[in-house]
């Protein structure tokens, strides 16, 4: 069964009670002031790998255990995985050195610039990354890390609408686009948006034809908030990241989701006897499609940097990435794993072809970019108001 980090996020919310107080305290114990200006050095060429153990910091269930076991066998080292639940938690623990890790497995694109500036990750030595050419061409020189100097892409996905094709006509979803959520008055309590302030507010903006997804214009944000708030009374909207299980199980009919959620839904959450044809995914056309990716990096002052480089290279191997995809359900950012390949292999059904972004989708994609402290604060304030239901 494919499981996902989104699953873990939903399942592990209990730890928030501990972490909620614990994270600032960890940071407090670190006693750091401003972290800007800390730069780390790249490792030299041709070094022998350390004896390990390799310490990986990752979301739970976000890497295939068999892939890890294979790495251990191949390099004769032990791998230790420590998990986190949110980006905030991960950055705080790494920055405060509350955790000693070698590989930061799943960095969000919007935080990488800060991780570099804060010296949390180190520049990569590409001579160890012989599989790097396997990476999608458009992500070999990504906007968040020029020349992939500090990171390599792990998986990628787009944001669209996951829906029950047996309850709502796919042609209607195609026609209505983002308005599908606002028109879903027949499905009250069965509509959800992503529990992510930028994703949800950007969706409301795009519905109104505003495609500057990195705007910090207060008026536009306020309008998006007002539009999003309409959903509370219109459709009794939910706020979660559970589309991957709620749609196949039938408790949600229409959800703003990540494309990978529907692949997960197909692979692991369809009730017995339910055909994959009940699942549908729509995304905006190329040029209006929001695409995101997670990346891997080597922690700034880690104990096993050579081994960490070898691990990154290992994960960029086509066969390893495919094996990993069969478990996590998120598409590796490698050229070979295109729509035809993953559909031909049976990982994705034909009716969910849209879940695999095309070259054009990626080349014209919209990306969430860092907004700065003030910009983020505007989105966070709007989000707090929306979720308060006030």
């Amino acid at each position, binding site marked *: 069964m494919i499981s996902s980090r989104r699953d873990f996020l939903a399942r592990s919310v209990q730890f928030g009670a501990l972490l909620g107080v614990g994270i*600032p305290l960890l940071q407090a114990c670190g006693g750091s002031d401003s972290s800007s200006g800390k730069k780390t050095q790249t490792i030299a060429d041709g070094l022998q790998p350390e004896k390990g153990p390799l310490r990986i910091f990752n979301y739970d269930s976000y890497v295939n255990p068999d892939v890890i076991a294979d790495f251990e066998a191949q390099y004769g080292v032990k791998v230790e995985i420590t998990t986190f639940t949110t980006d905030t938690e991960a950055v705080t623990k790494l920055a405060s050195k509350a955790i000693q890790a070698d590989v930061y497995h799943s960095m969000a694109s919007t935080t990488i610039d800060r991780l570099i500036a804060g010296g949390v990750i180190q520049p990569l030595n590409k001579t160890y990354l012989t599989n790097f050419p396997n990476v999608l061409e458009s992500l070999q020189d990504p906007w968040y890390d020029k020349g992939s100097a500090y990171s390599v892409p792990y998986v990628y996905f787009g944001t669209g609408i996951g829906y029950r094709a047996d309850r709502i006509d796919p042609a209607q979803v195609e026609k209505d686009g983002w308005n599908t959520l606002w028109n879903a008055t027949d499905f009250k309590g069965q509509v959800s948006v992503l529990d992510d302030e930028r994703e949800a507010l950007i969706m409301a903006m795009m519905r109104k034809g505003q495609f500057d997804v990195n705007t910090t214009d207060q008026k536009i944000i306020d309008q998006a908030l007002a539009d999003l708030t309409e959903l509370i009374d219109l459709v009794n909207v939910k706020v979660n990241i559970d589309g991957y299980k709620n749609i196949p199980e039938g408790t949600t009919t229409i959800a703003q989701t990540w494309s990978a959620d529907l692949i997960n839904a197909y692979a692991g959450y369809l009730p017995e006897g339910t055909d994959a044809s009940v699942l549908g995914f729509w995304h905006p056309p190329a040029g209006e499609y929001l695409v995101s990716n997670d990346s891997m990096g080597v922690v700034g002052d880690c104990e096993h940097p050579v081994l960490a480089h070898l691990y990154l290279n290992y994960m960029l191997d086509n066969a390893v990435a495919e094996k990993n995809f069969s478990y996590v359900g998120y598409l590796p950012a490698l050229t070979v794993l295109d729509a035809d390949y993953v559909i031909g292999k049976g990982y994705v059904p034909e009716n969910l072809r849209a879940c695999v972004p095309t070259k054009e989708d990626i080349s014209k994609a919209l990306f969430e970019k860092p907004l700065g402290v003030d910009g983020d604060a505007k989105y966070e304030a709007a989000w707090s108001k*929306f979720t308060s239901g006030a």
Partner: protein
Amino acid sequence: MTATLSAPPAVAPKPRPKSRFWAMFALPGVGWLVAFFVVSVYAVMAVAFGTVDPVLRTAVPAWNPMQWDFTAMRSVLDRIFGGDLGTVFIRTVGFVAASLAGCILIGYPVAYFVARKASKYRGLLLILLVLPFWISYLMRMLAWTNLLQVDGMVNDILGFLHLQNEPRNWLDGSASTVIWGLVYGYVPFFILPLYSTLERIDGRLIEAGRDLGASAAQTFVRVTLPLSVPGLMAASVITILPMFGDYYTNTYLTSGSPKTEMIGNQIENYLLGTSQPQTGAALVLVLMAFLFVLMAYYLVVTIRQQRMAER
């Protein structure tokens, strides 16, 4: 010869030196409180009145009170008194009050029965009451999300009993589901302290009430109920304190409906999902202050009752 009896000389008893031996028994508790309450609360204050690292957006606590910045706290208070957070606070208070009422309605009869009427089954019933603690709260909530599905067992049973025609979507984000979830989750915490109070009530007082002509109901209202007030108070405090900080009940039973957002959800969001941990910490302090008022009221009432009992 006259025998006289003289009173023994009024010798004041020799004061016994105060032993420090027993006082030392408090040391572990004091140490625990200092380490895990006083220091922790101060750390929360340092975060709430501190700043944020401009690069990594992590909290930079202000340990020195002279450097405290009250911007986040002012913003939180403004939003509570007249803003969106006020709505969330009022909603949380409403949910907790309704849940407490549910706990009293369900918990009191159960505690009374076990304490006064269960006789030889008391031990078994007590084990059954403790049984929910063997399973984590989270797991029990997850179980309910399955039971309350449209095609779940709850709808199956209600349909079988002809109590509803159409299956209901219990998880559609309604307040009643959250309230019943809270009642379900916390009622064992309510029953146990109440049971211990009811169990200690002197049965002769109840018999006296009946002997003096009071009916069973009158005896309950005029004897048992007043004597169980300390237990009711303790049970209420033990129940509502965690309820106020609860957020996963709402998260699981409504899949994140803004209509049922509780203050714990906002704290979680600010501490785990934003670059404003100081706002989350400020919310924690406001909630603590509010709960401290409730706790102080409980202590005052308890002390008064103790003094009355000693007279």
